[in-house]
């Protein structure tokens, strides 16, 4: 597996994005000597868990990213600091969150382009909100139209649309709502020019080793049946299928998913 620069793990809420993203970081760590970072986009990572898993986190706080960017454009860090202190700008960033999204994404891409040895895995927001993030360059391109900013926005879009640099994992769980949302998301990502997508079925009870060939109580039997029905009726061919692991320790869970990722990707 030749690693990409940026991995985006997304899908409907509750499909297991965090555990899978952490496992992907571990899997990449074992495959390459590069620095693999875990990032939660606009939320704070569970640092305690990351420490236990020996995973490095990287954050791009919006205030700092913006000050740095404006400073570069104006050729002065001091003026940038002064500008960002103005309550007017704070209020503006609050009321237009997608502006912040774009700046965070821009800073991340900039870091990746400058550091050959860095890889970032984003534990991304769920479907609706990741589209807001990924459509922000397009929207602000329309807003700014010309000028220095537009060049930077194009650089961002080129990066995001490169299949060699970016890989997006769309996670599904075997329920009608999650799989439908996954299909819609893949279609909309395609319209934003993002096509290097891995369609992943996560948390499949019918793939659990304890479930196979056992006499199950009615409710589990029913659960397994409806999982299979969903997949059949929506005619999905998943690139990767991960079983439901029953374990209350997140560390054990991450390790098991990591192992599964490595065996699946070797195929």
């Amino acid at each position, binding site marked *: 597996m030749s690693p990409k620069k940026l991995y985006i793990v997304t899908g*409907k*809420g*509750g499909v297991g994005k965090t555990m899978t993203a952490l496992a992907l970081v571990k899997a990449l760590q074992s495959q390459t000597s590069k620095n693999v970072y875990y990032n939660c986009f*606009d*939320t704070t990572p*569970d640092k305690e868990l990351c420490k236990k898993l020996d995973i490095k986190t990287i954050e791009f706080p919006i205030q700092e990213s913006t000050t740095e960017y*404006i400073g570069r*454009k*104006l050729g002065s860090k001091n*003026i940038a600091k002064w*500008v960002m202190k*103005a*309550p*007017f700008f*704070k*209020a503006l960033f*609050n*009321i*237009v*969150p*997608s*502006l912040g*999204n774009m700046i965070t994404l821009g800073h991340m891409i900039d870091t990746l382009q400058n550091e050959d040895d860095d890889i970032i895995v984003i534990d991304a*927001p*769920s*479907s*609706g*909100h990741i*589209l*807001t993030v990924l*459509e*922000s360059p397009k*929207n602000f391109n*329309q*807003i*700014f*139209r*010309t*000028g220095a*900013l537009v060049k930077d926005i194009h650089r961002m879009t080129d990066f995001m649309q490169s299949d060699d640099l970016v890989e997006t994992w769309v996670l599904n*769980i075997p*329920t*009608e*709502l*999650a799989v439908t*949302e996954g299909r*819609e998301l893949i279609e909309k990502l395609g319209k934003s020019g993002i096509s290097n997508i891995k369609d992943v079925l996560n948390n499949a009870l019918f793939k659990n080793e*304890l479930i196979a060939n*056992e*006499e*199950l*109580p009615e*409710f589990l039997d029913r*659960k397994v049946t*409806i999982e299979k*029905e*969903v997949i059949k009726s929506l005619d999905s061919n998943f690139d990767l299928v991960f079983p439901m692991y029953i*374990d*209350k320790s997140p560390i054990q*869970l991450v390790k098991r998913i990591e192992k599964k990722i490595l065996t699946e990707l070797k195929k």
Partner: protein
Amino acid sequence: MKNKKIEVFCGTGGVGKTTISASRALYLSSQKRKVLLITIDPAKRLKQVLGLEDSATGEITKIETSNFNLSDSGELHALLLSPEKTLNRILGGKTENNIISTLSKPYGGMNEIMAVLEVQHQLNKNEYDTIVLDTPPGKHFIDFLESSKKIQSFFDKNFSEVFNFIGKRNKPGRILTKLVSSGIDKLLTYLEKVTGKGFVNDFLEAIHILYDHRDVFINGLHLEKDLMNVDFSNWFLVTSADQLKGSDAKELIEASNRFMHKDNYLLINKSWHKFLEEWTTDKQSLVQLRDKLLEQENVIKESTSQYSIQQIEFPEIFENSPAKQVKELISHWKSL
């Protein structure tokens, strides 16, 4: 459970907020109430749950409650939030301003702010006995709650001088040269250096347009107070018994503490507890499986036991079709 003007369903992603809130709205309408169900989540699963078309987005749509085996019920209307339509209503028509029209597109990022204004608008109309609100997941729920604060700071007194100055006497384009007081001229000069002149003009025009309608925005600030009023709202923090949502539930309870009052409920959804307790088996591997599942189920109870919040448990519904799930959930509300 007391009847209130508004019921709010919030929680992290995938816990079943949309399905649960739809069932609650249908249940309330079966109690002869006139109900409006609003969803704010841009992913809009509500259309799948209630069988709505994409074209229904932004329009209040009447739901046939007979499709959910309810007869002789009150009325249920549903609204999938469209930031664009909300904004156009506020501004009294489509705006030509490039910035405003781009940002109010479906994924432009203005969802949470527009949601506050839409909910307030529907409350002002006073046509419904209850409004049921399906909020966006996780962090974005907090964004929604804090929208009032954001609106307030945007229209803050500190700016009114600037806005008045930009006001009617000045046509966009000539403003820059005229702004000499309050330091904002300097700010805009820097902004222009980074973004170009076209943007700064659009930007000032956008602010001007918004400021002209500031009354509507300021009116939206009432919602925050109403949501904290125990006579006005019921809160449901939805969490799910599957997949280790324990720490999420904890975070949610703590984050929403300052907004809530005594009529709030922790709703543990998709619980297998009942099924697992009833399951008897002698086979060693299955005993092991059951115990592991029970252990996992208990994570959520253990991590929320320290809070005094009232708990309601909903069993997982083993049905594929969202509509069938909703039907079962309605009867669960009835049995509470």
